[in-house]
């Protein structure tokens, strides 16, 4: 069984032999990995110049769309890949952890450039010395900023990783005891992580009780103005 789950969908197609064959044999795992890796929706968190290089990667000269990644989503609910591109300050780290927490699993993180990976040249009181202080990172890209080639290289490596990814497992979830009768017969295709959940830096843990974020532009009553 374990051998079957290791099968890649490309191997399956080759194994089927004749091109006239209309039956495709595969596993759900291989099929889902194949569809996941070819439809990554990145959430670009462009914080400085790396964001510009990421835009260049998405534009026609380098054309990220060749890998099915052109649908940059600015809503974390719709994104699979958090691409942190640029200098992260501690103040912005709260935003980043919130974005990461809002993304639905399965999700991946790329740390793009020297600043996101290690703080870069900013060894300062305000700059996070590597985003992995807060969230787990799948790939780091070196460079200041990295060339689009490097970004594409890592995106392809990420596809390989998803293809052989063991961290997410497709499960047939059965309803919990006490569920409504109409759900009793139903099985749901879901996913779960192997092992214990990754210890995440939550906002409260790192920043204390702060209440809601203050808006930069505050409403002011007319009589308070000049």
């Amino acid at each position, binding site marked *: 069984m374990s051998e079957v789950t290791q099968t890649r969908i490309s191997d399956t197609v080759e194994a089927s032999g004749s091109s006239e064959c209309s039956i495709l044999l595969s596993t759900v795992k291989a099929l889902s990995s194949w569809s996941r890796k070819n439809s990554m929706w990145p959430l670009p968190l462009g914080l400085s110049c790396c964001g510009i290089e990421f835009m260049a990667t998405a534009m026609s000269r380098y054309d990220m769309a060749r890998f099915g990644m052109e649908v940059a989503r600015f809503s974390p609910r719709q994104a699979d890949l958090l691409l942190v591109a640029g200098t992260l300050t*501690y103040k912005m780290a709260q935003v980043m952890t919130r974005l990461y927490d809002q993304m639905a699993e399965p999700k991946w993180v790329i740390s793009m450039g020297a600043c996101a990976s290690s703080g870069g040249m900013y060894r300062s009181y305000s700059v*996070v010395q590597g985003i992995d202080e807060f969230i787990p990172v799948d790939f780091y890209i070196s460079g200041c900023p990295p060339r689009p080639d490097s970004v594409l290289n890592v995106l392809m490596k990420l596809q390989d990783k998803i293809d052989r990814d063991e961290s997410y497992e497709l499960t047939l979830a059965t309803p919990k005891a006490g569920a409504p009768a109409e759900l009793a017969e139903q099985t749901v295709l879901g996913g779960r992580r192997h092992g214990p959940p990754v210890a995440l830096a939550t906002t409260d843990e*790192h920043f204390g009780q702060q209440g809601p974020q203050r808006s930069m532009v505050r409403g002011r009553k007319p009589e308070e103005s*000049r």
Partner: protein
Amino acid sequence: MDQVPNSCMVYTAEAPAGVSESVKQALAPFTVQWSEHPEHGGGGKQAGWPGCLVSGADWPKVFQALRDGAGFELLIDHTAVDYPARTPERFTVLGLAANIETQERLMVRTRVAEGGSVPTLTHLWKSADWSERETYDMFGIAFEGHPELTRIYMPQDFDGWPLRRDFPMQGHNRFRD
């Protein structure tokens, strides 16, 4: 910290050349010490801004007199400098006001000790709001009467005042350094 120079300003009772009569007239009710920036001996209209040193209590009144009496309608800059060796008033708070019509500028300074406070200018210029929050955030100087004196750059629970000269260059990151 001892190597940090003290203020290089030389103050005199006489207003330097280039200060217009209307400014002198507007500031007549106040005790003012005058200076000219030693590195800019004057020349162009924007070089060698004259400056003056006033007391903390006079600080908002001087700006009000400049704005309403001498036509200094614009607050260009508003920040502070730290001279840690100077006692007891280690900070110089400064505001740069300008008259747009005559292109005059005047750098008004006042001194404040650590833990002290300076009256706010927000009732005169709305633009003083964020710059006073910035000065508070970076130096820990309080502005009396400010509508909402909170940190503007750093996270609200940040510990320390980064632009003070005794703030460490390294080692302040909480998790890794």
